[in-house]
């Protein structure tokens, strides 16, 4: 296992596989950060239930754009231009969850509750990683704190709509059913060879299966506490 700390000035001296994997993971992370605003801004900013909600949508988008900026800068420093993801149509995104469009508030709420939470798991993989500039970014409180804020808002909104019962609860359950499996798929295949190489080079900490299981253990009691049904984890899944 590779456990050295790699500074920017030493990046070129690293193994080509390390360089490829770092470039790839930064491109995917950048795509996921900008993918969120591309999913929800157009329809949700003008139609959010309250004025406060509209401002929160705008602030959430601003924070995600800033996360993109920070990751894009790290990628740019190693010669990887990830600006192409800014102009990609949603259908081209690396991760399937970002390929559609969010048009209903319930989906925006559950997206924060479940998908931003997967985003936090992805960022946690970089805490203590071997690429020092990325590790340093993760040690700064902003990115993780802002991601937690998105998760908390989504979780509270999901719980609020579930507590209303009736049609509101049915709509939020439908959104949960849709996003739950997308979230589980975001962890990738349990037998992924590339994931093992990320771990070998100290660019990720957990296996895909470990991270997915921890996520399931975290969200299951939250869903149950809201009085919602935990969706079938196999229904509609693409990756196992």
């Amino acid at each position, binding site marked *: 296992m590779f456990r050295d700390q790699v500074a*920017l*000035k030493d*990046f*070129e001296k690293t193994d080509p596989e390390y360089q490829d994997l770092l470039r790839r993971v930064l491109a995917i992370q950048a795509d996921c950060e900008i993918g969120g*605003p*591309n999913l929800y*801004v*157009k329809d949700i*900013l*003008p139609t959010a239930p309250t*004025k*406060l909600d*509209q*401002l929160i949508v*705008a*602030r959430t*988008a*601003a924070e995600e*754009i*800033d996360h*993109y*900026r920070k990751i*894009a*800068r790290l*990628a*740019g*420093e*190693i*010669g*990887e*231009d990830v*600006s192409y993801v*800014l*102009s*990609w149509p949603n259908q081209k995104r690396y991760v399937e969850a970002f390929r559609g469009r969010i048009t209903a508030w319930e989906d925006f709420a559950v997206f924060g509750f479940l998908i931003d939470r997967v985003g936090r798991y992805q960022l946690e993989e970089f805490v203590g990683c071997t690429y020092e500039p990325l590790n340093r970014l993760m040690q700064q409180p902003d990115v993780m704190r802002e991601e937690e804020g998105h998760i908390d808002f989504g979780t509270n909104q999901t719980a609020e709509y579930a507590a209303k019962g009736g049609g509101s609860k049915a709509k939020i359950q439908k959104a949960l059913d849709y996003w739950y499996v997308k979230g589980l798929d975001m962890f990738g295949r349990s037998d992924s060879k590339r994931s093992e190489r990320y771990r070998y080079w100290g660019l990720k900490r957990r296996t895909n299966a470990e991270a997915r299981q921890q996520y399931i253990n975290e969200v299951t009691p939250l869903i149950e506490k809201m009085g919602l049904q935990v969706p079938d984890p196999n229904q509609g899944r693409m990756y196992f």
Partner: protein
Amino acid sequence: MSQAPNTEALDEHLKTIILALHSAVNWAMPHLKDPKIVDQAVQDCKEILDVVIEGNVSEWLK
């Protein structure tokens, strides 16, 4: 290692965009009971975000 082209310029441009969005939101937050102010802030954010989502990077960096 040489930087990718436009790394600095894009970073600076995005910083300006992010600052403008935060300024609009922070300006409106204490005035939630004044729909005119909030609507103006939301409109400002919408115009900025529409440009980001359009993603015409080469135009931004001209």
